[in-house]
């Protein structure tokens, strides 16, 4: 007779294999890291550029260049670039993040030789035509207007600005910043940042020596170097601050609270990730259990720690019914206090260990995810030893260590507390 009350036996994840990249260098010294897999006939090539030459006078330079880079070269118009990339079924994506800007090509192997020259043209000869910039400014300002109606977006902007001030991490973008964009500034930034000596190439997928030769023939020459200065910021812990924007018509309030913390390079980072999981880092976390599953105040609540190159921060974020906003804040602080005053029980800690190991294993689903794991450590100046230590820490951390971490890093009297909506 089947006993359905008895859980089946299970094993904790024992080994997690990381695919390490092979490093090669183009003729112009651009490093190329390749994570190979022959499973599918496709490849992803990422061109990663450090953000450079930050100036508060032109806060949108890097962002606008990232979006407009494929809007025209000496040879091709914006439409022609898009048509050719699309014709080969390829995907050309640009991404701007706090530390880096990247251009990513996804293509089937059979079309690689056709699309690489287009990407080269874009990365070395982009022109930023004035009429494309005008359309961009108009449409981005409209998008901004819509976004400023979203409490969640407002809470992110206010939180970042409270922590990071007028730096690339925290600047509060307004419509007038778009109006101030000049074509010359985009060209200047493009030449400074999108240069071979500021580029790292990360390849994942089916990519053999012939493909590498193609890449080298295309990108290893005829690409001008630059003298750019990588962005550098210093942050100091802030005192307790409250940001409250009242929205009388709000049905829900967006809450975002937290403080500066450490990044991936700090020895406490793995431990803090485990503490974060317990607090609000997964579906079964304490915040979810209390504020969603017990009280029903929200559709979702979570916490996170974010590792940037020159800072780290931790945050708790949710959108809650406007009438229960204060009650939700009280419960959030209560959960933090418990972590600072009571040891986490062995049963819960075991669950979190197993969950995190399974989650790490599952996050290595394909060759792209292996490349992402490599980027996390490489751009933080770390090696695969980081993951070995992380896994060891997840398996062995004690409740006492977590209690100490909670008292060291969850210092709520330094928290920034942002509420948009009603309290």
């Amino acid at each position, binding site marked *: 007779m*089947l006993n*359905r*009350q008895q*859980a*089946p036996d*299970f094993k904790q*994840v024992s080994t997690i294999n990381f695919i390490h990249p092979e490093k090669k260098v183009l003729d112009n010294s651009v490093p190329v890291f390749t994570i190979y897999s022959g*499973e*599918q006939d*496709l490849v992803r090539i990422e061109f990663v550029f450090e953000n450079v030459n930050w100036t508060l006078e032109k806060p949108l330079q890097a962002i606008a260049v990232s979006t407009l880079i*494929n809007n025209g070269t000496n040879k091709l118009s*914006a*439409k022609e*670039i*898009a048509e050719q990339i*699309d*014709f080969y*079924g*390829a995907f050309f994506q640009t991404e701007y993040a706090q530390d880096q800007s990247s251009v990513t090509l*996804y293509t*089937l192997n059979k079309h690689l030789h056709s699309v690489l020259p287009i990407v080269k043209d874009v990365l070395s000869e982009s022109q930023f035509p004035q009429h494309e910039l005008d*359309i961009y400014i*108009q*449409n981005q300002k*409209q*998008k901004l207007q*819509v976004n*400023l*109606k*979203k*409490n969640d977006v407002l809470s992110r902007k206010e939180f970042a600005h409270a922590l990071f001030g007028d730096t690339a991490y925290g600047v509060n973008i307004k419509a007038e910043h778009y109006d101030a964009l000049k074509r010359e500034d985009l060209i200047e930034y493009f030449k400074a940042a999108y240069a071979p000596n500021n580029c790292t190439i990360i390849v994942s997928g089916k990519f053999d020596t012939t493909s590498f030769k193609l890449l080298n023939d295309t990108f290893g020459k005829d690409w001008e170097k630059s003298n750019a200065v990588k962005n550098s910021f210093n942050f100091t812990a802030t005192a307790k601050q409250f940001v409250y924007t009242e929205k009388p*018509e*709000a*049905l*829900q309030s967006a809450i975002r609270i937290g403080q500066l913390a450490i990044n991936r390079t700090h020895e406490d980072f793995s431990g803090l990730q485990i503490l974060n999981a317990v607090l609000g880092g*997964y*579906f*079964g976390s304490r915040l979810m259990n209390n504020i*969603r*599953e*017990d*009280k*029903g*105040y*929200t*559709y979702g609540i979570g916490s996170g720690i974010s590792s940037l190159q020159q800072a780290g921060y931790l945050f708790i974020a949710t*959108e*809650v*019914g406007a009438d229960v906003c204060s009650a939700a804040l009280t419960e959030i602080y209560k959960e933090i206090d418990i972590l600072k005053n009571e040891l986490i029980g062995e049963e819960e800690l075991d*669950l979190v260990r*197993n*969950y995190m*190991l*399974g*989650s790490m*294993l*599952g996050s290595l*689903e*394909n060759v*792209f995810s292996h490349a992402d794991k490599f980027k996390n450590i490489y751009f933080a100046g770390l090696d695969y030893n980081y993951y070995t230590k992380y896994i060891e820490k997840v398996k062995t951390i004690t409740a006492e260590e977590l209690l100490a971490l909670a008292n060291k890093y969850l210092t709520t009297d330094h928290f920034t507390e942002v509420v948009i909506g009603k309290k």
Partner: protein
Amino acid sequence: MVDFNRFTLANGLKVLVHEDATTPMAVLNILYDVGARDEDPEKTGFAHLFEHLMFGGSVNIPNYDEPLQRVGGENNAFTSNDITNYYITLPAENIETAFWLESDRMLGLAFSEKSLDTQRNVVSEEFKQRYLNQPYGDVWLKLRPLAYKKHSYRWATIGKELSHIENATMDDVKAFFKKHYTPQNAILVVGGNVKTEEVKKLAEKWFEPIPAGDKYNRDLVQEEPQTEARTETVKANVPLNAIYMSFKMPGRLNQDYYSFDLLSDILSRGQSSRLYNSLLKEQKLFSDINAYISSSLDPGLFIVEGKLVEGVTTETAEKAIWAELEKLKAELVSETELTKVKNKVESVLVFSEMSLLDKAMNLAYYELLGDAALLNQETESFIKVKAEDIKRISNETFQSNSSSTLYYLTEENA
């Protein structure tokens, strides 16, 4: 190519297995053939509320999430107008835990009052977060009842109104479970580092003892052909005027589905598309413009939506959309343009095979369509589409007397 093996248990549960030895993980995906279209018009939002209750404990297992997290697994679910889909990913060596959990909640729920109370609140907050407290968030709550008058697609999965969720009772929950959550109304897909023989043993052990239940025979009121242009104007606290136009199109199983999908790509996939280049870049009428299909099982909608540049009138903007649609009715698309959208679809299908979960979900969905093997014929079906097909369906579809248009205006403009 997504390979699979298939068998059916004595109680009618269909099981598909996709073996993929390149991953240490496994996926267990279960699709229930029930969606918002199966709801009572007076109790809408129920399929989705029910999805939440499926996590509130089952007859033998008081907590669903915790034992799964303990073995390194994760789960989630979604509800659409057509289906409800649940999935688990976990280390393959712990796959039996997924069978244990998933079979117990098919066998029976705990039906806890506390869970119903909480999830009524959680879903109400979801309703506010996604539909009411967002600019343009309620568009589908308005557009659906404009485009559908008889069919149950006239309400969104979240439901017509908050009160339907707030008033849900335990009796409703029990009746819904009995009617829809039976083995013969479900499709189970197991994928990843598993073997078919092992899956078969586990399926027989955990799922086969579940009673077959009564067969649910769907008999939905179908929409009558639309013969008049419908419009509605909404005024709200939004910064920009917007237009949402919808046209009737056939359901997912119609052979023209592939032509419609490509038609929407021609109009709006990426920066080489027609609407983007003509209406956004050249004429500068819209700051945002999109066309897409609802991909529903019963006859669906072809949508064109956009946000207007400040100062552009809705008449001008709408006329410009129509001009693009008329062009499709009058002229054949070029072979180059057609090849372009076909190549893009081919790529998307190859890239989608990078994700084990996507493969498992797709197998379940295509099995619901009639045969999981259809998944592997998708590229071929798209390649068969001709320029004449695009022109023909454009003429059949883009008629003002079968259109439903929602003008979503700023308060100053209304």
